C-alpha cells in the first residue's frame, strides 16, 4: 500500500522493465544507499533481487544466472570496492553472462585520483556505469532503462 495511490504508476499487469540483482559487495554493511535504490527500482517497474550485504562475486553471478538478470547493481561504501570488484566481469563472461550490465556506485573515491580517472579505471574493469557519491537515484534508473533498451 502506498499513501497517495502513487503505486498506480506501476501497472501490475505491465511486464517488468527488467530483472536486476542488487547488493553490497565485500566486507561492507552500509545499506542505506542500496535500499533506497531498490525501493526506487521496484517503483519504476523492475524486478529486484536483493542480496543484502557482504555479498561475494560468486553470489552475484549465481543470483544473476538463477534469475536471468539483465543487470547487476553493486554498492560499496567501505572504500574497498577496487579489491572486491576486480575480476567480476571475467567471472560473468565465463558463466555466460557477458551481456549482463554491470553497475557500480557508492564511495568509490580514491585519495589522489580525480573522478574521471576513477571512472576510467572501473570501466576498464568491465563496469558499464560507475557513479560517484551523491548521484541522483533517478539518474541511475534512467541510465538503466536506456541501456536495457539497446
Amino acid at each position, binding site marked *: 500500500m502506498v*499513501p*497517495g495511490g502513487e503505486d498506480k504508476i506501476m501497472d501490475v499487469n505491465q511486464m517488468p522493465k527488467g530483472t536486476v540483482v542488487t547488493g553490497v559487495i565485500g566486507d561492507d554493511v552500509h545499506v542505506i544507499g542500496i535500499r533506497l*535504490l531498490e525501493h*526506487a527500482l521496484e517503483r519504476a517497474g523492475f524486478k529486484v533481487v536483493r542480496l543484502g550485504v557482504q555479498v561475494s562475486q560468486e553470489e552475484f553471478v549465481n543470483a544473476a544466472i538463477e534469475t536471468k538478470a539483465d543487470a547487476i547493481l553493486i554498492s560499496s561504501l567501505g572504500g574497498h570496492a577496487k579489491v572486491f570488484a576486480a575480476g567480476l566481469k571475467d567471472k560473468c563472461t565465463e558463466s555466460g553472462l557477458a551481456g549482463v550490465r554491470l553497475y557500480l556506485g557508492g564511495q568509490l573515491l580514491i585519495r589522489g585520483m580525480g573522478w574521471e580517472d576513477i571512472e576510467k579505471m572501473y570501466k576498464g574493469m568491465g563496469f558499464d556505469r560507475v557513479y560517484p557519491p551523491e548521484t*541522483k537515484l533517478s539518474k541511475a534508473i534512467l541510465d538503466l532503462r536506456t541501456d536495457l533498451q539497446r
Partner: protein
Amino acid sequence: MGIKSMKLTDTEFRQEREKVLAEWPTGKEVDIDEAIEFHKSLPATKNWPRRLRAAKESGETLLVTGMGHSTLEQQIELIRYAQDVGHADLLATSVDSLTRIHNYAGAQRGIDESLKSGQSVLNGFPIVNYGVSGTRKLIQSVDVPVQMRFGASDPRLIEEIAFAGGHSANGADALHSFWNYTGKLSPETVLRNFQYVYRLYGYYEERGVPTSVAIQGLYPSGSAPPSLSMAAALTEVLIAAEQGLKHIALVFHGQGNMVQDVGAARTLVNLGREYLDRFGYKDVETSLEFSLSLPRFPAEPPLAFAMMCLNCLDAWLCRAQVCVFRTTAEGKMICSKEELAESYQCSKTIINLVKDQKVELDSRALGVEAHMAEIETRAILERVLDLGEGDLAIGTLSAIGSGVLDNPFGTNPYVAGKVLGARDSEGAVRYMECGNLPFTDDIIEFHREKIALRAKKLGHDLDYDTIADDISAISAGFFLSHKP
C-alpha cells in the same frame, strides 16, 4: 529450533553456559556466584539501575555515550578522563568489531599492535581478551556506573565477562542487533542468543544484583516513523521480561522533530507499562533512554556540537533518565579522550541550563503525535501477538517473515524491507510506504497528507532522491534538503 518465549530452565541455562564459557580461555574465569558477591561489594552509586531510580525520583537526565580504546591502560585513561574532566554521570564500554564477531585472536593482534605503537588500532575495547580480571580493573578505576554499548548477534561470552567484571547495564538487544549487525543469520538464532543473555541478567537480579537492559527496537536513520521502532522494542521487552529481568530501559530513538519525539516517547513509556502489566510483569521497573538516531552525523566539530545540543534538549523534553549523545568525533572516527570530555561537558551544560525550567510544548500538537504513535504501535503489536497465538517469540519471527515487523534499512535478507519513511515539511518522519504494516486507512491517510504538504512546499513529488538528499543534508547541519 522451535524457539518459544519461555524462561530457560536451570538445566538449559547451565548446559549452555558451559559451552559459552569454553569459547575462549578467559571464559573460565567467570564464577557467577563470586561475581554476585563482587557486585554486592560495590557502592550503590556504581549500580546503574539504582542510579537511574534516583534520577527518576529527582527528575534528572543523566548523560552517556559509547567509548572504546584498544588496551586496558588506554581504556582506563579514557574513562577516567571522561569522569574527572568531563564530569560524566555515567560511563560506557564499547566493544570492538572483531570481538563482536568472536575473532578474539584478531583482537589480540590489535592489542599487541596498540601496545607496540602506542596508538589505539581497534575500534573498541576487546573485553573478552582482558577477561573478568581486566574488566574489574576498569570498573574499579571509576566511581560511576558503567554500561555495555554495542550490537552483536551473539554476545553471550561478552556479556558473561562484562557482568562478572562489574558492568550493571547493557545496551545490546536481539532485534536491534538482527536488523543492523547480521549478514545472513536467522532472526531465530539471534533471538535465542539474547534469551540466554536476558536469563543471565535475570540470574543476577534473582540474587540481589540490579541489572538494566536497554531495548532499542530499531535504528530509524531518519526513514522510520517512531511506531516502527516502538513496536519492535515493546515486543522484545516482553520476551526479555520473561527471562527474569527487573529493570528495562525503553530506548526512544529521536529523529529531531521535538514535538514528534516528545509525543511518541511519552507513548512509549505508557505502552511499556501497560503491556508489561498486561502480561504479568508488574514488578519490572522501566526507565527512558533517549538517543538522537540519525543516518549520519556532521563531521565538522561546530555542527557536531550543535547536533549534540539538540540531542540533549530533546532528551530532556522527553523526560528521559538517560540521554545518549554522540561525541563531536562521531561523524569521522573513534574519539580521543579530549573530544570525549568536552562532549560530556557540552552536553551536561545544556542539561544544567534547562533543568530547573518548566517548558511545555504545544499540547494539541503533542497529543496528535502521541496518539498516532499509540494507534500505530498498538496495531503492530497486536498483530504480532495474534501471529504468535500466545507466544511472542513465535509471533516475532512470523512478523519479521511477513513484514509486520519491518525495517527500511535492514542488512539481513530475512528483513522484508517494504516500509519506508520520509521527513515531512517540519522534519517529522512519516510513512511514505507502509509495506505490510497492519494499518487502517485513517493512519495511511494521515501520513499521506503530511508527505503531500512537504511535496507542495518542494514543488514536486517526494521521491527517493528527496530521502537521499535529506540524509546528505545532515552533513551540512539540516534535517531537510532544500535542493530543487
